[in-house]
């Protein structure tokens, strides 16, 4: 059922619009959000692999009658293989990532519904628009289409931050938008250079032109387009020099919103990362740039996470730092490393959601995010403490959880590619991540409770506990049986290299 492919984008957009229309009708907003969020993960499961041509505009070569009526310079050349309209491509990568993205999206929406009595429809609108935008980016085979949804995703992310109650939300949102207004046009100019070279914005067409020598890959224009698109990618994913603003964005949103923001960022990271890899994999510069910026991101973010006492910002920095692992996988560029990078991306979505929702419960009960003012909370919520602890273990790469499997694959791929120094750095960063997480966990749960700490006598929303429980089960299952997803990723990567 290839017709279901565009529905993965269309359904959340339509629901988002409806939610905005019924913004003030609380019950309608809640029911509609819940129902659609629970249905969304089913669509990627039911869809068949394949391509969807918008408007039915298949490449000319697929239309024999039309092809015969065209001049020979079109019918016999590369032009006949070029894509005329926007194309969506749905393969194993898209199925796995979108399924888990929608599951995390559902759990974030469920948590929001559980934590708030009144939900503005506009907030749910932003959540669904964010989901639709990154889904379109992952499915699209058109780089300009990706750019458009990239901009929509940024606006949705800013909106999610603005819906929080943090005092500094406007300042952080403005900073993010100011930077985004530089990053976006720079990405667009890079796309413009590619359009000028190839005459198409379809990624498959651009890759065809690059691989078949139709364009000069050592020309300054091609290299310049690489630099510009790479810069736009750094902004969108929060690698240096944008790591600070990205973690600020996470720390200012409500915790369930932060979980979704990180999921959106990871999917943007993977979508644009794969596009860059496909187009520019012939450039030796690509490997150097990817490894340099990923390592810088990991080291800088971790350094800032260690010094941080605000657990929201700490998790924000850890989340941004973990993205570096995905970049390293792309940088190494082998089949194993790319599979590991995609697996790491999936794990990142799940693990950070656990941590944001788990620490969100602390915020819900105490209204405090400074770990020096917290303590002894294991007495109040031992179950949540255990789930958060397991989430932290998964992030640090402790066996047998999913984070361990993806990091092990990444380390193996670095060793196989004669890059032992990278493997050592990855191990060291995992250890420091573990220490940083344990510092926060000890301060919040294990150290004696401060006398002036007031824990509100309210029950933790069941939706939050349910969301965390589902996510931790996924972590354990993927840790024990990683082949459930790695086979699919490996199949996709096989076609990529």
């Amino acid at each position, binding site marked *: 059922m290839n017709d279901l492919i565009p529905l993965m984008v269309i359904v959340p957009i339509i629901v988002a619009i409806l939610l905005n229309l019924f913004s003030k009708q609380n019950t309608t907003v809640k029911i509609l959000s819940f129902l659609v969020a629970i249905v969304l993960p089913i669509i990627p499961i039911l869809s068949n692999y394949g391509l969807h041509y918008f408007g039915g505009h298949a490449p000319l070569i697929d239309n024999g009658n039309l092809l015969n009526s065209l001049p020979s310079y079109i019918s016999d050349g590369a032009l006949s293989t070029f894509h005329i309209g926007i194309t969506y491509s749905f393969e194993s990568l898209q199925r796995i990532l979108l399924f888990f993205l929608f599951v995390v999206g559902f759990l974030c929406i469920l948590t929001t519904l559980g934590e708030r009595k009144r939900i503005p429809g506009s907030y749910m609108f932003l959540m669904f628009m964010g989901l639709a935008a990154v889904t379109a980016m992952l499915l699209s085979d058109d780089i300009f289409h990706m750019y458009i949804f990239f*901009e929509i995703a940024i606006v949705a992310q800013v909106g999610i931050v603005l819906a929080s109650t943090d005092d500094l939300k406007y300042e952080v949102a403005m900073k993010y938008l100011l930077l985004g207004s530089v990053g976006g046009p720079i990405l667009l100019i890079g796309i413009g250079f590619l359009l000028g070279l190839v005459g198409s914005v379809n990624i498959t067409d651009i890759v065809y032109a690059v691989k078949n020598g139709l364009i000069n890959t050592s020309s300054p224009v091609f290299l310049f387009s690489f630099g510009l698109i790479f810069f736009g990618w750094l902004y969108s994913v929060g690698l240096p020099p944008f790591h600070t603003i990205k973690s600020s964005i996470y720390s200012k949103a409500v915790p369930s919103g932060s979980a979704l923001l990180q999921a959106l960022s990871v999917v943007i990271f993977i979508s644009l990362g794969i596009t860059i890899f496909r187009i520019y994999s012939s450039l030796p510069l690509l490997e150097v740039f990817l490894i340099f910026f990923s390592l810088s991101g990991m080291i800088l973010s971790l350094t800032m996470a260690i010094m941080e006492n605000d657990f929201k910002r700490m998790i924000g920095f850890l989340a941004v730092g973990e993205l570096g692992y995905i970049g390293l996988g792309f940088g190494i560029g082998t089949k194993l490393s790319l599979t590991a990078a995609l697996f790491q991306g999936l794990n990142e979505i799940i693990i950070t959601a656990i941590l944001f929702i788990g620490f969100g419960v602390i915020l819900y009960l105490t209204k405090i995010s400074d770990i020096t003012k917290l303590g002894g909370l294991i007495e109040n919520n031992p179950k949540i403490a255990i789930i958060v602890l397991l989430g932290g273990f998964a992030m640090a790469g402790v066996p047998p959880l999913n984070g361990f499997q993806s990091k092990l694959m990444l380390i193996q791929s670095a060793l196989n590619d004669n890059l032992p120094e990278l493997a050592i750095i990855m191990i060291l960063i995992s250890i420091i991540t573990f220490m940083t997480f344990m510092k926060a966990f000890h301060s919040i749960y294990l150290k004696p409770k401060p006398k002036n700490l007031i824990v509100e006598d309210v029950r933790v929303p069941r939706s939050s506990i349910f969301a965390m429980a589902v996510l931790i089960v996924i972590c354990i299952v993927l840790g024990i049986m990683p082949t459930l997803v790695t086979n699919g990723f490996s199949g996709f990567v096989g076609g990529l290299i």
Partner: protein
Amino acid sequence: MIDTQLAALLSSGSFIIIGLYAAIFIDNIIKKIIGLSFIEEGANMFLITLAYRPDGIVPIFLPGMTPEWFASKSAYPLPHALVLTSIVIGASTLAIMLAIAMVLYNKHGSLSASVILGDKK
């Protein structure tokens, strides 16, 4: 006489450089936003420039034209379509930035970026 396409390219480059200057060096947040608009319009103009063809025609296929003649004369329509979308997206982002700037002005009583955004984490 300067080539039209070259002149347009230089103009788009100027827009981008002026915009970058405003975004980086001017402290007033509204002027920063105007600068960012310049960058965006520069990018749009750059795309439009790609579509230009000397002595070209509007890319509408009319009765009496042969496909070969049309293909040799028509401007490239794709960048025009892209820019149209880009303008809409740019306008939305601009509206949000201005709305936030209004809120920040009411909160801080200033439009200075160093005052508003200073050392906020």
